[in-house]
């Protein structure tokens, strides 16, 4: 009996998690204009999604921004983590604590204060994309730092010294010895940064050029607007994003399992 209750509880939780997305996915394949009235199967939402230049441009721009910002954030976060690790204990502590603040801080505060600093105080135009990119780099870099730091700590600290001892310059030792050791941390930091940038709404609204939209800002604006075809096309977009995420998670889990079993064999 207890087993059934357990199973039911789990089922209920999963239902709450997945039902909304499922409903959206179902409606995306209909010609309904509102949730509630199903009229018939249709792919017109997907046709609109992949043929409207405005939508395609917005999606492309969002992805480009995410990759670019993630690249810069990975560079900065990794350098920061390596630098902090090889600093004096006190310095490391200060840097790590300061790194925590943007992580915990509300995005709306980050976005708003950045807008004030760059646009109002320094007079940088939003149209240059500089505030937006800087904003996303600031958003992501602390997370990269957090995912790289444990890998550096796990690394045997004497292998860097061993490289120097064998005649390598500090730069060669960093590139050929330290970076390969912490690469898994750098990669997962990059992936995290891409996701964060794609997810972000607040920083983007405060720092983006008026003519540019990320998926998040676009969706928020579109759902407020009256353009029904675009609105329903976004159901399709949500479904596509969900499927991509689903595939990615499945692949990542499979790979993790494979690595895990390999390690057991060794």
């Amino acid at each position: 009996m207890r087993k059934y209750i357990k199973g039911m509880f789990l089922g209920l939780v999963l239902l709450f998690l997945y039902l909304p997305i499922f409903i959206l996915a179902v409606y995306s394949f209909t010609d309904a204009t509102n949730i509630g009235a199903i009229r018939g199967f249709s792919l017109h939402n997907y046709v609109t999604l992949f043929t409207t230049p405005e939508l395609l441009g917005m999606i492309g721009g969002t992805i480009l921004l995410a990759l670019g910002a993630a690249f810069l954030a990975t560079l900065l976060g990794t350098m920061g983590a390596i630098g902090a690790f090889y600093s004096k204990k006190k310095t490391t502590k200060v840097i790590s604590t300061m790194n925590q603040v943007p992580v915990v801080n509300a995005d709306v505060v980050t976005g708003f204060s950045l807008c004030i600093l760059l646009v109002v105080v320094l007079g940088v135009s939003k149209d240059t994309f500089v505030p937006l990119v800087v904003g996303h780099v600031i958003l992501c870099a602390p997370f990269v730092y957090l995912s790289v730091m444990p890998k550096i700590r796990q690394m045997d600290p004497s292998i860097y010294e061993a490289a120097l001892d064998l005649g390598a310059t500090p730069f060669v030792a960093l590139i050929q010895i330290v970076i390969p050791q912490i690469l898994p941390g750098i990669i997962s930091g990059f992936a995290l940064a891409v996701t964060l940038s794609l997810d972000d709404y607040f920083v983007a609204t405060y720092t983006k050029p008026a003519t540019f939209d990320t998926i998040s800002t676009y969706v928020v604006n579109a759902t407020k607007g009256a353009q029904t075809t675009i609105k329903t096309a976004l159901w399709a977009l949500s479904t596509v994003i969900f499927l991509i995420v689903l595939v990615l998670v499945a692949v990542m889990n499979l790979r993790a399992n494979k690595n895990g079993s390999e390690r057991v064999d060794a």
Partner: protein
Amino acid sequence: MGTSENIIELKHITRTYEDGFSAVEDFNLEVKRGEFVTFLGPSGCGKTTTLRMIAGFDIPTSGEILLNGKPITNLPPNKRPINTVFQRYALFPHMNIFENIAFGLKQKKTPKDVIEKKVKKVLALVDLEGFENRSVSTLSGGQQQRIAIARALVNEPEILLLDEPLGALDLKMRKEMQIELKAMHDELGITFIYVTHDQEEALTMSDKIVVMSEGKMQQIGTPEDIYNEPKNAFVADFIGESNIFNGIMTGKLKARFCGGEFECVDDIEQGTHITAVVRPEDVELTPPGQGIISGVVDSVIFKGMHYEITVVSGKNEMVIQSVKSAAPGERVGMKVDPQNIHIMIAEDHTNIFSADINQDFHLEYNGHILDTSVTKIIKGSRRTEDGTLLDAHGEVIDPKKTKIMVSIQPSDIHMTDNMEEGIVQGYISNLIYKGDHYSYVIHTDLEQDFIVNDEYLWNMDDQVGLLMPVDKMKFALKR
């Protein structure tokens, strides 16, 4: 013994950290080309720090390091013709064995065919032919250690540094590697500087041993010198097992310790306080009454090669290694051949510290008032009616500029678990058993070392308060 023979010289090397802790203090060493030198000492004695300064990972706060007579004190590690074998091997996990060994040669832009030849040769030297394409993780600890040695040796360094390289191996493997390392040293003629806390390892392998404690060199010499003629109680205690006693010279070549008068071969003036060292294997058991001293067997432990017998004689305790067993409770005599008694002039263990005179003209140390009169300490001084302190010549003594040196004997200080009760607090950083009492070194929170004698056993690193009776203190004015 010309300077040209010395491959490396350390001159007055000191390494002090920002918190004021000195890992190495005024360290001097000359190593000759081709020597096998071992730094031996307990953990935290500064041996690894010294090695790291030779490698270039650490820079001395002061002093100079000369390689072939040229200063290299501030040269980065990658510019030194010195290679290191690390404690935990430090192989590069993402490279295979060939790439690991070739790494150093590649940095020097050695041609590919030469690299291949050299790697092959060095792999043969460490008995791991054909391991080129193996990955690091498939190797056992012993094999990884051999690769680490090969990786260092392939660069043909002038000096090979080894930082406790065998510490992570099991006993059998360690013994094998000791012999192999020694053979490699003899074959290659490279200077080896070896760091270990294992005295047996040091005695087996080295041409010269440097015994270190608390950042200072205690003794340097051949393994035989160090074992047979330890310079002080620390070295005697650290190298091999020892019975250590406080005693006094009672005549020409005669010393009294452990409740008996022994003949010895060290000619020290009569009446000198001494420390006597007797190795457990040098004590001979005799029928009661026929030895120099006698006692009752307290315990007998079978150790395979011999029995370890502890005999209590009066207030003293003697540990004996003998091939013959004895029964606990049995009365026995003991004698020692004069050749086997090592006598050292006792170091003066008087503790000296400085105390302040506070505004109320009381003596103060670590926030505690020492209940004594300042005017009694400073001869001829007196207090005037307005409260100032005048010395014998009638001149004003400024309490802020005056310090009083306080001295107290080790046996007059007592330890207490009740920290607050003590005049100063610290932890036990060292202890040596001296026959009828323990001699402790207490490192206080004020960064001073106190020597305390106590007949009871306290544990290393115990936090204690020190009780010092004011009537046992001696005072002296310091200007």
